[in-house]
């Protein structure tokens, strides 16, 4: 074949491909999930896709089936916050949006979400009557006594309820029970204090030819919460009353000196080299599943990864150890996180949106979500078989944390994302032991305070000094 002929054949093939594409565009599959006629369609935007998204979709399906008036349409993308921000700024928001709890201060303060109390006084009675006849629950309202104190706290900012938790979580000490056994430790006696943790970590750590083979405990795995160690020493990062950053408090300094004691003991280089050999979080090669790290601070959703990549792994969980003088078995300390379901300002159908929001809070729905996400329940009284149905066998630990008066959320300030970024950027400086923890913390503190001051100054400029 000549070059010319070849070219023509290829053009014909390309043309055929083009025609096929055009044909598919014209006559391809049609949209499937349209709402039945006559329903009020409300958009719900969420960050949950995949397995977590399926859980929410089941709740939505149940809602759509349970009545004939409203149809919830689910739009899930992991980058949903950005879409939500832009559409709220553009005054064309969805009816419902899922936000992380730490976004709540900004959204409540700017009234970008409708305070739920307003919706309750407008539609609460009516919806409660509907719910009584439709779902057989009497007088269903959002009440303090239905939730644990930390969960209730997650839904509020400055006393305003900005949303409800669709799921929430609490972080605990996770450990490999098999590793405990072969280190000669009792897997039923996890550490209660920092001193015990150090002791366990030392016994769990295996080195060979000068290299770490297994780390007993690693602060930097999975590395999502670089900022919280001070809380286990009785510290905190932020005082809301005075709007002050407390990163360089004595408790925090102690905590990060403790953190530095690990690279001091095992060598920064060695630990970093060791850590660089871990596989991604979502794989069988990740630190905990592969047995390279015997214990970490983690959330209950770790079991999602375990069930997929290493079913049957013998894990245990306990509240994270704390400094000896503040140890109290009845009042465990741990981070609580929530993702909140909110109704944005300018919502096209507030009544319908509020109805669905309340529907997610029916005990069976909120627990179904918790179970499918492998998270604890925000409800003060879990249903009797909640723990039995739950994929995480240590969920009781998380439920207890979720109800503890010493559970702590992320600092509630609009400056938090920047504050946290400082920790994430500087944690290596501490880990490399190039500067004393106190110095680094003082620097973080100073910068965080500046972020907070800006936030305060702007709020006062916008809303007046006392609002």
């Amino acid at each position, binding site marked *: 074949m000549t070059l010319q002929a070849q070219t023509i054949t290829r053009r014909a093939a390309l043309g055929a491909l083009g025609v096929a594409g055009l044909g598919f565009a014209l006559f391809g599959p049609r949209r499937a999930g349209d709402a039945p006629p006559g329903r009020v369609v409300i958009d719900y935007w969420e960050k949950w896709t995949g397995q977590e998204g399926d859980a929410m979709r089941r709740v939505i399906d149940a809602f759509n089936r349970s009545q004939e008036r409203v149809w919830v349409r689910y*739009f899930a993308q992991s980058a949903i916050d950005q879409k939500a921000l832009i559409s709220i700024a553009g005054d064309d928001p969805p009816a419902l949006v899922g936000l992380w709890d730490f976004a709540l201060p900004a959204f409540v303060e700017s009234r970008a979400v409708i305070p739920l109390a307003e919706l309750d006084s407008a539609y609460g009675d009516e919806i409660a009557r509907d719910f009584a006849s439709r779902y057989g629950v009497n007088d269903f309202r959002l009440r303090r006594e239905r939730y644990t104190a930390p969960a209730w706290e997650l839904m509020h900012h400055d006393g305003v309820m900005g949303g409800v938790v669709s799921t929430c979580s609490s972080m605990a000490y996770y450990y490999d029970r098999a590793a405990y056994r072969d280190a000669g430790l009792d897997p039923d006696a996890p550490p209660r204090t920092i001193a015990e943790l150090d002791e366990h970590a030392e016994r769990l750590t295996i080195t060979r030819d000068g290299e770490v083979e297994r780390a007993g405990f690693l602060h930097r795995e999975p590395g999502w919460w670089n900022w919280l160690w001070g809380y286990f020493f009785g510290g905190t990062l932020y005082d809301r009353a005075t709007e002050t950053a407390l990163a360089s408090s004595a408790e925090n300094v102690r905590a990060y000196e403790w953190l530095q004691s690990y690279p001091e003991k095992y060598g920064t280089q060695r630990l970093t080299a060791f850590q660089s050999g871990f596989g991604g979080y979502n794989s069988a090669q990740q630190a905990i599943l592969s047995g390279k790290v015997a214990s970490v601070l983690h959330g209950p959703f770790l079991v*999602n990864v375990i069930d997929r990549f290493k079913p049957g792994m013998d894990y245990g969980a306990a509240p994270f150890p704390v400094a000896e003088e503040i140890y109290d078995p009845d009042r465990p300390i741990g981070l609580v996180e929530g993702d909140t379901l909110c109704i944005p300002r300018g919502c096209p159908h507030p009544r319908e949106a509020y109805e669905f929001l309340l529907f997610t809070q029916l005990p069976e729905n909120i627990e179904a979500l918790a179970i499918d996400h492998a998270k604890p329940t925000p409800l003060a009284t879990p249903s009797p078989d909640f723990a039995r149905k739950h994929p995480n066998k240590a969920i009781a630990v998380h439920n207890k944390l979720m109800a503890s008066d010493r559970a702590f959320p992320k600092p509630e300030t609009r400056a938090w994302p920047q504050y946290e970024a400082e920790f994430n950027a500087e944690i290596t400086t501490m880990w490399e032991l190039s500067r004393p923890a106190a110095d680094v913390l003082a620097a973080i503190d100073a910068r965080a305070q500046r972020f907070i001051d800006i936030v305060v100054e702007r709020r006062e400029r916008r809303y007046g000094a006392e609002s």
Partner: protein
Amino acid sequence: MRDRPPKPAARVAIYLALSAVSTLFLLPLVWMVSTSIKPVEQTMQASPSLLPEVTAAMVLADLRAKRAMIAAEGADDATLGALDDRIEKWDAAAAAEREIEEAQRSLRRMEASERRDIAAIDAQRTRIRGLEDQVDDALDSVPGLALLLRQAADNYAGRTGPDGKVIVQGVLNDPVIDFMLYLRNTLIVVCLSIVGMVFSSSLVAYGFARVKWRGRGVLFAVVLATMMIPFPVIMGPLFILFKELGWIGTFKPLWVPAWFGSAFNIFLLRQFYMAIPKELDEAARIDGCTHWGVYWRIILPLSRPALAVVALFHFLFVWNDFLGPLIFLRDRDQFTLALGLQLYQSQAGNVPWNLLMAASTMVLVPVLAVFLLAQSAFIDGIATSGLKE
């Protein structure tokens, strides 16, 4: 340089260089395709293998799927019973397989320990050998290739029972992620915009490259500047604009602007047009040809390779654009492929890597086909470009 084949020595050098380079460049593709045919527990290994390993866990999963399938088809109890027996056997083998891993890890630890217990280490070694024999015996009789093919098919097509119930979830039978619909949506945007993009960009590029007028330099600088504004800061106002036009929730924001050209493509074509000798159109102009005539009859035919590049880049842009569809669409039935792919990346973990990569492969194949054909039909098509002096 191009019409004569190079000398033999140079030829060998070129082949060697090209082979080395293409191996390096093909790595992501190879990894992607290889991940797309593995069972999920074998994905994301720190030292990956090209093909999935045949394991007892795979056989077990396959048998379980088979059982669910024939049960849904209404098989009799005897058939099911026979299958159940096999499942039981493989369950044991899979358990042994898991144990090996665990035992090996603890063996390593025993060896690393300061007080090495030789007897215990030997016992552990014997135990591992025993387990390995058990698994190997079981796997001996397994038709490996068929199993691997079935695994690949499962990831792509999945298995659906006669009642439409999903038994094994693949990319194509996902009840939530409708790939074919997303493909159609993407193609709609491509079809609606590609002609306009190529035509307008070339028209504007001609105006900048081959018509001399005051102010074109400044205006061209403005064209370039529009490329330099980061999208995040204009997304908000753009959203408001499209909202006022009533375009939010439609495909219009994704294709209408293409009909006015894009800075990247205008710039690219301008550079090509600047490289075409001026004698060509000067002659035509003297013959009384208008600028339009020069553009239509001389420049356009001469720049076919460049136009093909523009069409290809625009196609790629639409294919991969994530932010535009994310911001401007409102309904999951309007998703494009780029948005659909994102659905596999769940936030709190549990990414089904094999399905994500199978979907990525399926998204990539048409692009690769278009590239191969376009490059050999146009970019390579020197015989018809006629640009020889």
